[in-house]
């Protein structure tokens, strides 16, 4: 049942109760009023009238006695008339009494009184008649006999009637009193009953309305206080309270949903702030930094003292910015926060976008600063957001990329000039520079002749550089030439400053030396070179250089990833300059193998090269060529057996030579081995004893015996052959290798310790800077390039294969 219905019921029942009490009271009072009226208008006057009858009767008696004693007829007549009136009065009084009689007893008594009155007045009339007739004695006798008798009788009747009336009156009053008393008590009972019933209904309503509302209110307050929106107020009823509770619960669900969303958003933002690789902070009024900022900011600034710091102190201290710029930044920040958004537009250009900040340990970081306003609904700037990016690496890469670009352009320029001509140019340019330096040192004052020579020299360098298309150098030289030119036509604003002229000349020298360095180191074109050799070193084609240049020119310098990729690509290209595959390095040596084998009466061996993705720097080419010429000859001569010996031993008639490249522990290891009979340890020992290198009974391990071959003048050949016996033994090979900072060693590859013959590898170890690792594509490209550079492509030389 609804609360509305309950309250309606309460009101209606209250109304009904009041109406019934009122109705009952009205009914009772109306009855009582009749009773009172009856008593006051009927019973009491009637009782009084009955008492009055006695006095009227006394008057009649008195008049009758006066009549009897009246002296004359005139008076008699008067009294008679008066008696007639009194009779009528008495009769009417009795009529009234009869009307007012309320019981049979009274009516009987009135009837008797009437009859007695009639008799009484007959006697009075008789008396009067006798008197009128002058019969005084008869009159007196009638009076005392008849009248007195009837009078006594009448008096008795009337007295009885009076007594009866009085009794009736008393009874009526008593009945009225009891009625009034019962009315009072009945009303009291009804009222008390009504109060009880209404109280009961009220209490029930209280229980059913006020208490649930109170409970609901306290639950709501509790939820509001605890902010625990997962809770619900139990719905126990279907009335307004139940529906209110449902609505409240629905609202809670909404709040829960919203707060969950808010929580999620907050978590997201927190996660972003925690994990994004960017420094983000907001500046609030007073240039203070809000306590919520991205974690990475601490990494960038290398401090965790961030919250509530002054932004000027945190970001701008120890930067390259001057005091005036800083005060502008501070004023601009102050002008924006708390003001209309237009103020950001006015002053944003003063908010510095990049600073160089010195860290406590002296490193300098370049920070990219991005400012944006955070406004409220009124378009007032409440905070400034500042994104801080550490672009040190990016700037460095951009710089590096630029350097690389220059270098690539210079390489392009250099490669367009033959090695010989380039060498001549460098030598002559340095000579001119030396001359200029001497001239400059000699003159602390301007001198026309000196200037003429300086200009002439510089002009010659410029002319040559221009002829060879060395653009970068031309620009630098042109600057110097212009300086001399200006000094030749004296102007007051240009003074002869020896120091700056020397510095400028040093710049020219550095530019020339840079070209020279690229030529010698990156391109491996040391010295004047020989005709025909130049092309051998052009291992990266010009197209690739142009492509790489293009890549550098179009790279987005604001994008770290793109820059890194470009840098790596260019670095690869640059690293590959002056390198070649081992197959190319050893091309000439391996080409000679068939002829060598034929000369030594061996079947032409197969050659397998396993470069493991490494290419060799040109600097190592000479050494490797020299060393391998001897090692390959030794292998074919001493290692591989003659075809018939091999066949007898169950091997293929033509042997196998293997060469492998590997980089391990910081060294490049170039190994050579063959599938011949192995290292003749017994013979080596015998020869060593024969040559007096060791005593006959000296205990030697296999390794020690093997190392004897590196001893000067050692030769293992049973006869001095044309090839191996020219006096260039393994001692000479070891010298070559050691001179280039390398090592040579024999490594056994079998477990036959103490055997006469043991399988082995000869391993040359060089610094790993001589090797460059490349990917398959590049390697393919390089193999092709080196193959094309040869008259006969390496890959087409039947027995040579590379892996």
């Amino acid at each position, binding site marked *: 049942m609804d609360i509305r219905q309950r309250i309606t019921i309460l009101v209606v029942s209250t109304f009904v109760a009041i109406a019934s009490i009122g109705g009952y009271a009205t009914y009772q009072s109306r009855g009582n009023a009749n009773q009172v009226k009856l008593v006051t208008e009927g019973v009491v006057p009637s009782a009084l009238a009955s008492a009055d009858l006695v006095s009227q009767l006394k008057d009649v008696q008195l008049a009758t006695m006066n009549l009897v004693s009246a002296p004359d007829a005139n008076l008699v007549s008067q009294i008679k008339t008066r008696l007639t009136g009194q009779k009528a009065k008495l009769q009417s009084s009795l009529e009234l009494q009869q009307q007012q009689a309320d019981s049979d007893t009274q009516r009987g008594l009135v009837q008797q009184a009437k009859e007695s009155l009639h008799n009484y007045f007959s006697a009075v009339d008789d008396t009067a008649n006798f008197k009128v007739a002058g019969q005084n004695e008869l009159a007196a006798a009638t009076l005392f006999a008849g009248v007195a008798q009837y009078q006594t009788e009448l008096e008795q009747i009337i007295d009885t009637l009076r007594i009866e009336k009085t009794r009736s009156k008393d009874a009526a009053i008593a009945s009225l009193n009891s009625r009034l008393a019962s009315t009072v008590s009945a009303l009291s009972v009804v009222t008390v009953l009504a109060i009880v019933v209404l109280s009961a209904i009220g209490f029930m309503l209280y229980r059913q309305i006020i208490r649930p509302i109170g409970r609901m209110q306290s639950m709501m307050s509790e939820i509001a206080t605890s902010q625990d929106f997962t809770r619900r107020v139990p719905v126990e009823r279907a009335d307004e309270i139940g529906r209110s509770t449902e609505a409240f619960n629905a609202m809670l669900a909404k709040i829960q949903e919203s707060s969950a969303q808010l929580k999620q958003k907050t978590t997201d933002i927190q996660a972003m702030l925690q994990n994004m690789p960017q420094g983000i902070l907001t500046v609030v*009024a*007073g240039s203070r930094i809000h306590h919520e900022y991205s974690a990475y900011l601490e990494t960038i600034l290398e401090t965790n003292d961030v919250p509530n710091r002054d932004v000027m102190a945190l970001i701008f201290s120890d930067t390259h910015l001057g005091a005036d710029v800083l005060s502008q930044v501070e004023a601009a920040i*102050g002008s924006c926060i708390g003001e209309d958004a*237009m103020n950001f537009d*006015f002053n944003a*250009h003063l908010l510095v976008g990049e600073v160089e900040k010195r860290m406590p340990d002296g490193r300098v970081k370049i920070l990219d600063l991005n400012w944006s306003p955070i406004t409220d609904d009124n378009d007032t700037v409440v905070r400034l957001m500042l994104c801080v990016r550490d672009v040190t690496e990016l700037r460095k890469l951009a710089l590096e990329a630029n350097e690389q670009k220059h270098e690539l352009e210079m390489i392009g320029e250099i490669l367009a000039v033959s090695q010989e001509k380039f060498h001549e140019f460098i030598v002559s340019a340095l000579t001119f520079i030396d001359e200029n330096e001497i001239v400059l040192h000699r003159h602390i004052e301007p001198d026309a002749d000196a200037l003429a020579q300086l200009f002439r020299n510089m002009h010659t360098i410029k002319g040559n550089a221009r002829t060879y298309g060395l653009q970068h150098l031309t620009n630098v030289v042109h600057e110097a030439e212009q300086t001399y030119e200006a000094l030749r036509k004296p102007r007051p604003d240009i003074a002869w400053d020896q120091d700056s002229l020397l510095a400028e000349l040093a710049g020219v020298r550095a530019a020339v030396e840079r070209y020279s360095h690229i030529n010698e180191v990156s391109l491996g074109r040391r010295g004047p070179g020989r005709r025909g050799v130049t092309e051998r070193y052009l291992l990266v084609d010009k197209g690739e250089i142009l492509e790489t240049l293009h890549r550098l020119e179009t790279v987005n310098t604001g994008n770290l990833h793109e820059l890194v990729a470009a840098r790596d690509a260019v670095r690869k290209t640059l690293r590959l300059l002056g390198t070649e595959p081992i197959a190319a390095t050893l091309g000439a040596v391996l080409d000679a193998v068939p002829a060598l084998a034929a000369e030594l009466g061996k079947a032409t061996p197969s050659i397998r090269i396993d470069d493991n993705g490494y290419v060799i720097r040109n600097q190592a080419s000479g050494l490797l060529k020299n060393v391998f010429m001897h090692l390959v000859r030794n292998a074919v001569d001493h290692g591989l057996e003659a075809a018939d010996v091999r066949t007898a031993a169950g091997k293929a008639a033509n042997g196998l030579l293997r060469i492998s490249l590997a980089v391990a522990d910081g060294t490049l290891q170039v190994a050579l081995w063959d599938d011949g009979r192995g290292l003749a340890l017994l013979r080596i020992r015998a020869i060593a004893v024969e040559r007096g290198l060791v005593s006959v009974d000296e205990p030697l391990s296999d390794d020690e015996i093997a190392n004897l071959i590196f001893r000067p003048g050692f030769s293992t050949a049973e006869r001095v052959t044309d090839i191996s016996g020219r006096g260039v033994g393994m001692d000479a090979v070891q010298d070559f290798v050691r001179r280039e900072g390398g090592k040579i060693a024999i490594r056994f590859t079998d477990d036959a310790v103490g055997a006469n013959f043991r399988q082995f590898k000869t391993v040359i170890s060089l610094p790993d800077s001589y090797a460059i690792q490349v990917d398959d594509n590049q390697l393919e490209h390089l193999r092709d390039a080196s193959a094309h550079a040869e008259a006969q492509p390496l890959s087409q030389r039947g027995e040579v294969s590379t892996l």
Partner: protein
Amino acid sequence: MAQVLVVDDSSTVRNEVCDFLKANGLTVVPATDGKDGLDKLRADSSIKLVVSDVNMPNMDGLTMVEKIRGELKNSTVNVIMLTTENSPAMKERGKAAGVKGWIVKPFNGASVLATFKKLVV
């Protein structure tokens, strides 16, 4: 009849601001200090925007703005302060007098022009 009143005791700044605004199609009247500014504003009711320096002889910029609002009972003219620095106290005083914006010197025309054009309509 002008749209913008430029108040600055430095003729360099005054001329620079005036020239820039004129070159960009705004009508300008210059004033050399707060007193002069008040007189010019009193004489020309068509002025919609006041660009004023703060520190000036005779009458400073903020006092001028207070008088514009008080004595002149002009509550509609837009006021923008051109200053080298600002303190919270200055900004508070400016806000109370209805200063709309603060431009930190040096004056950079490009960053204010669009807003100025809106403010003189």
